[in-house]
């Protein structure tokens, strides 16, 4: 393949080049590979017996429709959010982001290009986990696939934005292991990943609905159960968009392109 193209580069070609390099780097980072590729499946498996013991009769949920959205949530949290906080922080500290900014890439292309491999890997994993859960737990096909897909896309976009926002407040790769914790714990406990909001007390559920990852999980679950009315759907979409806009605002205001000196 020749790189002597005299034609001007396009945003897509630039992001592709960056994404290719990031994918190579991800492949060489064993710790990141483990967190992104093994942890979500492991957590899903470890959660299965607990979910099996839940009393789900009243909520109309099954073990599958509790477990699978949580499983995809783990993918979003570990393979996208955590992984990207690490990527953004390390590239900033290595002065890679600063160097990239001297070239033709625009700021958003740099962040998006670096995020692309993580997102792509996450989508592949989600498909595999969905297929796996369907077979193992004998789940019915999703009633509204597009809802699940929309949930996944919204969730992935939000995770990318929040990862950049978190990186803005993280000084080092070591710091990234701590700074991702609030988001991880809050989402696991409150976003319906382990305990569905449907089985929570109403008051608590209506607060938890507003957490960043809750809309994605609700849409994914709704995709399988088909039990999401238009009002609820609009509410979740509104929450997801609000968090994304808030994240974009934070990134624009606080994201740092080079280390503090």
């Amino acid at each position, binding site marked *: 393949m*020749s*790189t*002597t*193209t*005299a*034609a*001007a*580069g396009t945003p897509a*070609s*630039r992001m*592709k*080049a*960056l994404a*290719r*390099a990031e994918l*190579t*780097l991800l492949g*060489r*980072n064993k710790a990141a590979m483990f967190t992104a590729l093994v942890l979500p499946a492991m957590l899903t498996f470890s959660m299965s017996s607990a979910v099996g013991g839940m009393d789900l009769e009243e909520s109309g949920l099954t073990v599958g429709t509790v477990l699978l959205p949580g499983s995809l949530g783990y993918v979003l949290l570990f393979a996208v959010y955590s992984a990207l906080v690490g990527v953004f922080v390390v*590239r900033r500290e*290595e*002065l*890679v*982001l*600063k*160097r*990239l*900014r*001297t*070239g*033709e*890439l*625009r700021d958003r292309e740099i962040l998006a290009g670096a995020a692309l491999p993580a997102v792509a890997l996450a989508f592949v994993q989600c498909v595999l986990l969905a297929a796996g859960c369907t077979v193992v737990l004998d789940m019915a096909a999703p009633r509204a696939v597009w809802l699940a897909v929309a949930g996944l896309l919204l969730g992935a976009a939000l995770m990318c934005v929040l990862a950049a926002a978190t990186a803005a407040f993280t000084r080092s790769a070591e710091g990234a292991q701590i700074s991702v914790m609030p988001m991880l714990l809050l989402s696991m406990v409150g976003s319906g990943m382990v305990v569905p909001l449907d089985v929570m007390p109403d008051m608590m559920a209506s607060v938890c609905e507003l957490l960043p990852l809750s809309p994605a999980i609700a849409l994914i679950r709704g995709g399988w159960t088909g039990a999401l009315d238009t009002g609820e759907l609009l509410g979740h979409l509104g929450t997801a968009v609000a968090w994304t806009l808030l994240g974009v605002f934070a990134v624009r205001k606080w994201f740092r*392109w080079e280390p503090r000196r």
Partner: protein
Amino acid sequence: MPDVIEVEELRRTYAGGFEAVRGISFSVARGELFALLGTNGAGKTSTVELLEGLAPPSAGSVRVLGHDPYTERAAVRPRTGVMLQEGGFPSELTVAETVRMWAGCTSGARPVGEALELVGLARRADVRVKQLSGGEKRRLDLALALLARPEVLFLDEPTTGLDAEGRHTTWELVRELRDAGTTVLLTTHYLEEAEALAERLAILHEGRIAAAGRVDEVVAAQPSHLSFDLPEGYHLGDLPPLGPLGVTSHETEGRTVRLKTTALQHAATELLLWARDGRVELRGLDIRAASLEEAFLHIAREQESTR
């Protein structure tokens, strides 16, 4: 033809309130090699980052190729090459992978092999960046800066960390680029680098331009030095009148006399004629033309004492 780089009353104040660049103006013509010389902390990198379009100026203006490099980046970036003071490369990529990535982000990039050949890194193509020496990293950075045959090249301390041979190889490369018509703006704290490469330069000191012009002009603005020991029995008053010699200042220390003059040849001739006629032996005679180094040290010292 308008200048390739135009800087007017440029200022840069950091968030903490520190003013790193305090109102500087200069311009660089097409094909010219211009050096920003200064000690660490003089404001060189802060200035170059504004020229590269990494940040907007706090006040004043920058034009590169007729455009604002910050707000009109799409018009400027494909035509500039940048070498930062410290290369920013992912440490786990190989040299070739790094260049390939950069080539994919750059319009009209050279082939990877050609770029590496240019800086003598072809044999290191499959080595991880983290295993490169400091000098090799600088050369990799230069390869990226030259990838698209830029019209304007920004080199921020390109030879810092290089050994003597690496430095001279880089100088050769920079000269070739300049001869091929590339406009180069270079920062350095090595005087000999500025002297060897630059047609014009500005000496930065504490965010201001302390001296600027062609190298010989900057040097000529500095006084030359004459020093010698007067034999026993002779005094300063026995010398020819100092004023007509163009002597601007003098000092004595024991028997040693030090004169500064702006007319070295005239002053030296008159002094030596006086010595021959009076059969005076001037021991320790030292006649020294102004140099860039002296200009540089003089500027640093002068500003130090005016604080």
